[in-house]
């Protein structure tokens, strides 16, 4: 038993360390496929990160220690968050009553520093980006909490591991409506939080309408590598959360479950890729409306389960 937990932890950490960039690769590949291109190899993101790590760094003269702190904190928060969220049917390494609140607020911390780092450059573009980031994430916050409430109600527990692992087809059969609404809401949050289309276009760099990418314009070299990795990890962590809701299949066998988890994460990546290739960016005015809509979905699901 003890060994199994240790094993699970190692696998968990290993996955968290290694897998995230792969998702980006898969997304890219999917989009290329839709565009009828061959596209970059799956492992391209790894190459990018490694190259960036080896590159030199340029610091803007206007920046201060806040600028340097940004990437570090972003990485640290996502890393800790990845330890709180269960992968597949296995409970997470760290799990205690109320850890979901910590989970939600860790992202806030990361965001806080990313925004400050962007603003530290004194560039009007990056200011623009962080202003948007602040507003949108603030709108996305309640959705996540509605989701947590629903799950905690369904599972009757107050820690991410239990409430997510608990989700199964049985639960779906009983509370299908609620979970469906939730999946809708959480998918929007997933896209918004990771700055994917239709909220943001991670590929462009010089458009007045970007959020995340524009905030990191002045980061370069290892710092940028850290940011890229942190972003991927964030996608992975939130994705894991989403996968629990959307694809809650589990066999009794731990190793099989790990496999299933990896597969479903890849499926998720593919789905995101499809969405990104079939949808266009929303006009900025529409973004808040979509986020609020997501909140409403989640709120309805909550009401369905607690009434």
């Amino acid at each position, binding site marked *: 038993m003890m060994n199994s937990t240790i094993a699970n932890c190692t696998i968990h950490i290993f996955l968290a360390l290694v897998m995230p960039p792969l998702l980006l690769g898969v997304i890219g590949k999917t989009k290329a496929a839709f565009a009828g291109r061959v596209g970059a190899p799956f492992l391209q993101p790894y190459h990018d990160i490694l190259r960036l790590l080896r590159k030199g760094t340029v610091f803007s003269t206007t920046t201060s*220690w806040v600028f340097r702190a940004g990437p570090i904190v972003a990485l640290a928060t996502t890393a800790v968050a990845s330890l709180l969220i269960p992968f597949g049917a296995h409970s997470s390494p760290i799990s205690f009553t109320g850890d979901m609140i910590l989970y939600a607020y860790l992202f806030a911390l990361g965001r806080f520093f990313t925004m400050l780092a962007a603003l530290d450059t004194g560039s009007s573009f990056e200011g623009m980006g962080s202003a948007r980031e602040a507003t949108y994430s603030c709108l996305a916050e309640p959705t996540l909490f509605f989701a947590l409430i629903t799950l905690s109600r369904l599972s009757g527990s107050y820690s991410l591991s239990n409430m997510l692992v608990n989700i199964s087809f049985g639960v779906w059969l009983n509370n299908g409506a609620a979970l469906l609404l939730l999946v809708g809401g959480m998918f929007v949050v997933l896209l918004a939080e990771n700055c994917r289309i239709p909220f943001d276009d991670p590929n462009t760099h010089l458009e007045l309408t970007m959020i995340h990418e524009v905030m990191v314009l002045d980061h370069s070299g290892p710092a940028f590598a850290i940011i890229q990795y942190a972003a991927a990890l964030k996608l992975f962590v939130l994705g894991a959360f989403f996968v629990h809701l959307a694809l809650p299949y589990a066999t009794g066998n731990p190793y099989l479950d790990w496999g299933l988890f990896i597969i479903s994460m890849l499926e998720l990546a593919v789905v995101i890729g499809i969405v990104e290739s079939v949808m266009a960016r929303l006009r900025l005015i529409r973004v808040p409306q979509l986020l609020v809509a997501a909140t409403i979905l989640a709120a309805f699901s909550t009401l369905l389960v607690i009434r």
Partner: protein
Amino acid sequence: MFFALQGILDPGLMVLVAAIVVGCAGVPGLFLKKPGTGQAFAAVATILATLAGVAASMQLLFSYTTITYVLEWNLPFGPCELVIDPLSAFFMLPVFLVSAAGSLFALGYWPSAEHRTTERGLTFFYGLLASSMAILLMARNGVFFIMLWEVMALSAYFLLVTEHESNDVRRAGIVYLIATHTGTAALFVYFSLLAAQTGSFLLPAAGSLSALSPFATIIALSAFIGFGAKAGIMPLHIWLPSAHANAPSHVSALMSGVMLKMGLYGIFRTLTYFYDPPLLWGAVLTVTGITSALFGIAFAVAQRDMKRLLACSSIENIGIITTGIGVALLGVSSHNTTLVYLGMAGALLHILNHSFFKPLLFLGAGAIIHATGTREMNLMGGLGKGMPRVALLFMIGSVAICGIPPLNGFVSEFLLYLGFFKQLKADSLVYLVLLAPLLALVGGLAVIAFSKLFSSVFLGTPRSPAAAHSHEAGLTILVPMAFFALICLLIGIAPQLGLHLVSPAITSFYPKLASTELSVEYGAILGRLSLSGALLLAVAVVAMFLWRWRLGKSPVTSAPTWGCGYKRGTARMQYGASSFSELAVSVFNGIIRQRIGRPKLTGLFPGAAHCSEVPTETILERIIVPLFTIAGVSFAFLRRLQHGQMHLYMLYVFVTLFILMLWAH
């Protein structure tokens, strides 16, 4: 007046003496000729008294004891008891700590050498304010309570109008004075009705009154108005933003960090009287609380005056605390000890936290004003270079007040969240859980507000010459800030300590909780929390070292920020405070209102134009002021009765006579 002592020198007496010393600290300065000595003396005396007072309060707090003195007075309002129970002792801590830090801060921020005319009064009333609050916490005679309450309010007023040459300050002062006096009128009703209930002006013992008794509702209502107005709960907050913004910063720190809490203390105290509070009370507190939290922080987002922003966020935090109290009260009404415990713990701990990080931020604001001479955030920027230490401490404060891990603000909100979530398993009041998303929204808005504050002040390039020539603050300014920052970190990393601090107060509020294992259970949970906090720091440190190592290996150059294609990007082109919050304001339009002055651009080459966005005080400007105008008009109409026509005055006399005759027969 002398004290009929029971027992010899004991912690209670020590607290009392400390309070009195703090009160008298400013007196010598009134008579000393040489500038500065009085101020320095006051600072030293206050700090020494604080050391004693805090130690004694701690001892009282952890020994769960209640000490009673009787103050010999001959006013016709019955005996005057001074009692220190854990609840009072708990509230003592912020009083002493903040006042001490402030008096030290004043040495650098309001040096007697530069402010000869105002410094004496400032120092004197500062001590008076602090000590009146400390003694207020012990007062158990309603009339004595009101006296101290008024001394507190008035000395706060005199502190606030220190710079009464400025119009804003005077206006803020009048609004504050009117608000607080109206609140006091409510307290007149409150204590009178209590006396009508108990037959004496001594405050009733815990759990001695029934909410079903006649007047109980009026008592509760008047308490809510009287104390709520002081605490700044919406919609009684009208005085708060301008008052906190216009007072000298260490005064703002004391007002916001401690004086608001006196209102909350009053509410706590009132709630202890009743053994059967109806659900309605808890509901009212919860709703008003969460409303003030949301609206307060929404207003904060829109502000452009640094200290106004902080003041609005005080409204928010008070709202959060009130929500906690309300939830706890609902727990009492529904006999749900977990809810009581978590609500109380959250509220009390947040009181403590807020009275640490809010003063920290206000003192920081003071340091900034001292350096730049303005409160307008749109004129700052780039101060992080000039004053890195202040920036660091300010950053800690901002993170803490946003309720973000791993700092103390998160801990108290965490407890509240737990309380909400636990309702999912409760058999009643399940819907309380819906407070969680609202609180989350508040948190998100707080992040906007404080990233706006920090970035527009410390980051980027200076937007005005004043900001360009900023200088690092002196020790007397940095030490108090650092002290608060350390406490914030400490409680953030070791939240169990915080829980340990509040549990005596909780039990004195709700004795049934004395024996439960809840404190143990949640202590353990907070232990896990602190572990993850430590882990976070560890990961960050490791990442930092790795990065340093990489930086060492690869070339590091520095260049100007990429100008987005503009050749000559000026500082004014940065995202300023207003532009940063513009999107949020537009999204939350309706809650936040702004007076926007847009210039008319005409012709092919319009000349220089000016655009301004001023956030409005919705309730004050839309409701109170119009009401006053209406009253003024109608009064002006009635004033025609005094028309100077003598023969009609005669008529008044005889008509009165006639009416009275009719009435008599």
